[in-house]
């Protein structure tokens, strides 16, 4: 039915099957949209946030998707600027994941503000001292860069590419992609950092406050570093999921091993810096403000020392080591374990830097504040995930996302690519759930 749109030579599942899957995920999207509508109509009272918890689940989700979505920036940087050619096999997919993550981040920010119609004030009346201004600037423009990087891939759709203008446009955009990639790299560096700065500059909150290097708190660098360290984990994880669902090998082992190796070294170096930062904070910064570090991990139902251990050791040091060593890195099971731990680790770090910061009492007579998100919050947080699944499914079906797909799956058929293939019934389910 839609075979004219499917890339030449690619095998995809049948039209009804695909759209049945999309419909299931689409229902989740509708649920999220309903919650979003409720929040815009009735206001943020639809959430369980309160005056103690001004930042909550959304901001965590925002920080988390940006951290794991850093892949587009680093792949672009490494491929276009450092000329690591091997990454061409993953760059399209990394860009799509990045596009999903950043559009989700912007969407969450748009839901999160109390007066959405005034959102433009952040640009028009910008306060240059605020980390959030920097976040908004870089986030928006970086999203623009991602869109620009994504467009050529969209225009490579079989039908779109037949239009002469689109064909030339995609060609020209590829030609100067290095400029866009460089702009994106600069923007991305600053906003990954400024997201860390958001918590690091709050000197009224000793749990998140960090000493500064000039105007930048240490968390600024730690966030950039961690995003650079953990993005391959997420990119690989999503690739793995896509491969499992489609039942095809989509990215070659060489590329996977390279990404894992990058992740291993980056995670290890990051986690060493993070441990040093934590020790310095626990022994110098916090005590200078009158706090023993254990204060932040006691007298409450959730935030115990286990959290620190999980973040730093279990989901930091362990995946780092697993990915550095060649034997474990090239063992697909252990590699999968490592990348899952890595993704959990970076998400946990963002959780701690948003929710634990709000939960810790600062005034001696104050109490811990814990909160449970409302269904509206959860629905709007799951919304981007569902939307991401749909977008990945659509792009996989209609765009030439994985350049290695042919050679990895149908090496013998390579000669017969121009034969239009309608998916046979026996085809595995294509990217839906």
């Amino acid at each position, binding site marked *: 039915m839609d075979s004219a749109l499917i890339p030449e030579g690619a095998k995809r599942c049948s039209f009804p099957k695909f759209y049945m899957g999309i419909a299931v995920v689409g229902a989740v999207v509708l649920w999220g949209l309903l919650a979003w509508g409720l929040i815009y109509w009735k206001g943020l009272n639809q959430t369980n946030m309160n005056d103690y918890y001004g930042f909550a689940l959304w901001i965590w989700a925002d920080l988390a998707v940006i951290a794991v979505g850093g892949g587009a920036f680093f792949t672009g940087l490494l491929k276009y600027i450092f000329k690591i050619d091997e990454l061409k096999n993953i760059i399209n997919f990394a860009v799509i994941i990045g596009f999903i993550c950043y559009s989700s981040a912007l969407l969450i920010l748009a839901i999160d503000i109390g007066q959405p119609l005034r959102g433009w004030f952040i640009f028009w009346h*910008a306060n240059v001292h605020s980390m959030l201004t920097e976040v908004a600037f*870089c986030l928006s423009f970086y999203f*623009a860069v991602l869109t620009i990087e994504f467009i050529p891939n969209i225009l490579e759709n079989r039908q779109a590419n037949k239009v*002469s203008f*689109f064909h030339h*446009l995609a060609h020209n955009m590829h030609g*100067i992609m290095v400029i*866009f990639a460089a702009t994106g790299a600069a923007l991305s560096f600053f906003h990954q950092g400024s997201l860390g700065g958001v918590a690091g500059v709050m000197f009224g909150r000793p749990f998140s406050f960090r000493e500064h290097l000039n105007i930048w708190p240490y968390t600024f660098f730690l966030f950039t570093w961690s995003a650079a360290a953990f993005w391959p984990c997420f990119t690989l994880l999503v690739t793995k999921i896509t491969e499992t669902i489609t039942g095809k090998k989509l990215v070659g082992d060489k590329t996977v091993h390279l990404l894992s190796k990058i992740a291993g070294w980056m995670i290890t170096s990051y986690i060493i810096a993070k441990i040093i930062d934590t020790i310095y904070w626990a022994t110098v910064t916090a005590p200078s403000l009158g706090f023993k570090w254990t204060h932040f991990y006691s007298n409450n139902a959730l935030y115990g020392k286990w959290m620190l251990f999980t973040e730093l050791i279990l989901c930091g040091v362990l995946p780092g080591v697993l990915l550095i060593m060649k034997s474990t890195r090239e063992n697909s099971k252990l590699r999968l374990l490592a990348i899952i731990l890595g993704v959990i680790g970076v998400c946990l770090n963002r959780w701690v830097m948003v929710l634990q910061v709000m939960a810790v009492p600062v005034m001696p007579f104050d109490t811990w504040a814990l909160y449970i998100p409302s269904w509206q919050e959860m629905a709007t947080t799951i919304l981007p995930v569902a939307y991401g699944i749909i977008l990945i499914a659509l792009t996989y079906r209609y765009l030439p996302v994985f350049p290695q797909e042919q050679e990895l799956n149908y090496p013998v058929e390579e000669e017969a690519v121009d034969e239009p293939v309608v998916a046979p019934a026996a085809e595995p389910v294509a990217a839906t759930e």
Partner: protein
Amino acid sequence: MLPFCFEWVWDLGHVLFIGGLLFAPIGILGAGLTYCAVKAAYETINDSGESHH
């Protein structure tokens, strides 16, 4: 924020921050896209008769 409004201050912070993170990206991305689009339009028109080997 534009440099003509009263909230603008001519200091390093504003020039670097607003200039570098607002106007520079807008300029680079805008110019880049315009270049691509114009060139593509030009090529499309020129293409019609001949192919460009």
